[in-house]
């Protein structure tokens, strides 16, 4: 690898590492002030979190988090903020569960059907925001947030006995999907079963990498996110790009509920997890829209989610972990901005030095950062 690559990787890692350190320090301080031993707390978390059942749990959660983060990252690469992943995946999972329970198809086809329904629903819901943006100039930030609430209300309405759901064991949920619509998992005996859909999640990650960095469409998408004016001059149709990005993002968002739906719950009920969309945003930021970075970030986040259970036994409020997560997000974006400016300045200087001459008076001023669209 050339020197440039090593240095660049180093710089890329610097930010998340810095963020992690900052948040660990901050949380330790808070713990100390509250009269607890931070070292002990972290050690216990680690020991608990790396036990069998917890590891299975971590992988299962990551399967969903990864998809949510990918959905958000597709938007970020285009400088679009899809904050509506929550609404998209809830609607998608609900309708996929309902339709999945209503049809009978041979095994793999049944699963495929459910997945396709979920992706389509997610894409359409995100598409509303896309249409509003392209044709009316409405910011997707506000519209996706509004659609979140509206989607939630739709789900709540559909989850009543009058519409699609049944009351069963005191929980309102949709009818069960027959076993032809189940996705087999990897059993680890007593430790539990890892959702098979995690493979699909990984594949989506690979597809994300491939499409963005190796295809013409991906090039256009990244170019639009980096500089819309340059993309337009190069022939990109911005409206089509925005729609495509929102639809794709929504489609991936629709898949977020699939690991759980196909691997364990087989129906959509009131207890279906919520809020994964916002976690996805945090993870995408932490992983800097990079598929491998996001993977690590998902694992880290899930680890924190799962291992904090042990803190109860120590009399430490679990919420300390939520603070840690929030701090990581803030710290990482600050750190990214920092390292980005550093990297830019240092590269300019290096190039000037290597060319042995002057940077002419019109050296390029720093470009304001987006969301790490690079």
């Amino acid at each position, binding site marked *: 690898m050339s020197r*440039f690559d090593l240095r660049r990787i180093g710089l890329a890692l610097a930010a998340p590492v810095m963020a992690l350190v900052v948040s660990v320090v901050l949380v330790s301080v808070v713990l100390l002030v509250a009269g607890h031993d931070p070292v002990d707390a972290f050690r216990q978390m680690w020991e608990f979190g790396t036990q069998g059942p917890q590891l299975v749990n971590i992988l299962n959660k990551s399967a969903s988090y990864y998809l949510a983060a990918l959905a958000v990252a597709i938007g970020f690469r285009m400088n679009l903020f899809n904050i509506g992943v929550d609404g998209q995946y809830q609607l998608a999972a609900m309708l996929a569960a309902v339709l999945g329970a209503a049809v009978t198809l041979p095994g793999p086809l049944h699963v495929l059907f459910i997945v396709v329904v979920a992706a389509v629903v997610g894409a359409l819901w995100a598409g509303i925001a896309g249409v509003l943006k392209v044709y009316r100039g409405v910011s997707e930030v506000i519209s996706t947030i509004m659609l979140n609430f509206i989607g939630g209300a739709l789900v709540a309405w559909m989850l009543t006995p009058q519409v699609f759901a049944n009351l069963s064991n005191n929980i309102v949920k949709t009818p069960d999907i027959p076993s032809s619509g189940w996705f087999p998992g990897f059993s680890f005996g007593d430790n539990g079963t890892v959702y098979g859909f995690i493979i699909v999640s990984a594949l989506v990650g690979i597809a994300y990498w491939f499409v963005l960095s190796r295809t013409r469409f991906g090039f256009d998408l990244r170019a639009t996110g980096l*500089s819309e004016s*340059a993309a337009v001059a190069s022939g*990109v149709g911005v409206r089509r790009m925005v729609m495509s990005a929102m639809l794709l993002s929504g489609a991936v968002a629709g898949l977020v509920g699939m690991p759980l739906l196909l691997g364990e719950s087989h129906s959509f009920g009131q207890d279906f997890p919520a809020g994964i969309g916002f976690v996805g945003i945090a993870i995408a930021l932490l992983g800097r829209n990079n598929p491998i970075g996001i993977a690590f970030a998902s694992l880290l986040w899930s680890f924190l989610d799962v291992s904090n259970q042990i803190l109860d036994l120590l009399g430490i409020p679990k919420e300390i972990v939520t603070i840690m997560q929030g701090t990581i997000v803030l710290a990482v974006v600050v750190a990214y901005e920092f390292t980005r400016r550093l990297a830019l300045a240092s*590269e300019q200087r290096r190039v000037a030095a290597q060319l042995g001459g002057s*940077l002419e*008076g019109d050296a390029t001023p720093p470009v304001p950062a987006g969301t790490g669209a690079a």
Partner: protein
Amino acid sequence: MSQQTAPATERKASAETPAVRLTGITKRFPGVVANKDVSLSVRRGTVHAVVGENGAGKSTLMKILYGMQRPDEGTIELDGVPVSFSSPADAIKAGIGMVHQHFKLADNFTVLENVVLGSEPTSGGRLDVAAASRRIREISDRYGLDVDPDPLVEDLGVGERQRVEILKVLYRGARTLILDEPTAVLVPQEVEELFGALRELTSEGLTVVFISHKLDEVLSVADEITVIRRGTTVGTVLPKDTTPRKLAELMVGSELPSPETRESTVTDRAVLQVENLSVRDRDGRAVVDDVSFAIHAGEVLGIAGVEGNGQSELVDAIMGIRPATGRVVLDGVDISEESTRRRREAGVAFVPEDRMRQGLLLESPLWENRILGHQTLPPNANGVLVDRRHARTDTERIVREYDVRTPSIEVKASALSGGNQQKLIVGREMSGDPKLLLAAHPTRGVDVGAQAAIWDHLRRARAEGLAVLLVSADLDELIGLSDTLRVILRGRFVADADPATVTPEELGSAMTGAGTGTAPAAPSSRPGGHGLVGTGTTGTGDAASETAAEGGEE
């Protein structure tokens, strides 16, 4: 060492002491010396022009005078008193006001709000709008600026906005005004209004320093002219003692290249045909007004015009970036309804005016920038995929052939100097054998060496049959490269020029529509320097433009 500067009103201005005197100013930036031992002396109550090419150091000098930069060496004296500024606030207090080239106005605010911002009059904690309004009207009447405090700035035209900028500095008690390329965005009538306002100002005892590279304008309004070249002053002249040509020579430092007769490579085959092309702005006005022309293979059509007369919109329309009416035919195929991508695929290449905004992805490596604009064609693409390997090797070829100075093709585009960035863009656009090249200000902001290289490439491509539409503000570039030269004014072509015989000053006159009102003469009846022919009306009653310009006095 800094001294407190006394407010402008308290200094005694004597007729002998210059209002502004800069002595021995030197300013260095990393790697470049912007100003070297510059001296400038401006008499009170005059319009003093500072001229020089792009990159000659004029802007830096003015930033120093305005307090936005501090000189490394040298002194500034205002009315004989040495001063030192640590920020624009100091300069403002000392009575210096800068009218920027790019207006700093808040569109959603009224004129009044824009003018008083930062120096608001208050009464009892509230903004004293009435007092401010009174003062603004007073200043406007006194100096003939015709500025009304109430409208929103966004509703004002360009000329009016500029006068608001002027009023801004007058409101703060400026006695010396610096105007940075004020006519760059004005149409000829607005230029006249501005000059009228400047004469009013000086008749009231104010001093104006006027930066420009538009020689004919400078000659018509300035009382004294200082020429700057490569960071130093090369001379101060009086308008009556000089001509545009002599000024130009001072600016460039050598004999202007005399347009040489060269072999014509123009063929009969029309590559681009534009018919009745019109582009309308938001208010429905035609910024490109029913334009028709053709460019043949091997021909360079140069378009000369003051910025803002429709040339950018014309180029954008041909590229498909801007909606337009009319027909655009490329090599016999009607592309009027095609998207930008299809036009590029059909063989249109584009070197944009603003390379950083339209030509490059600054945070991407060079080889990705090579792909930009050509994503769908080999060697960059292979079906649906991007062909990275071939894109990389091709980028290396471009770097070699176009002498792009860079340590590697993995470097981000933003790390390159402007000249090298432009060479990369030119190289990229010329690859893939385009039929038509739209080159907008292709050597703007580019160092002399890169400029010569780019010209060479253009000439070679032209000899091989490329058709080129060249838009430029650099008259030498236009004259030196074009086979056909047309002048655009208010969206129409108003004059044709013969590059072999026209002079920069003739061209400049036609560009500003300030012809001399003489009767049309037969084109070849006067020897030497008569290469300009009017081609029609400008549409708004500007009678002078109908005529051919006079040959310059040598």
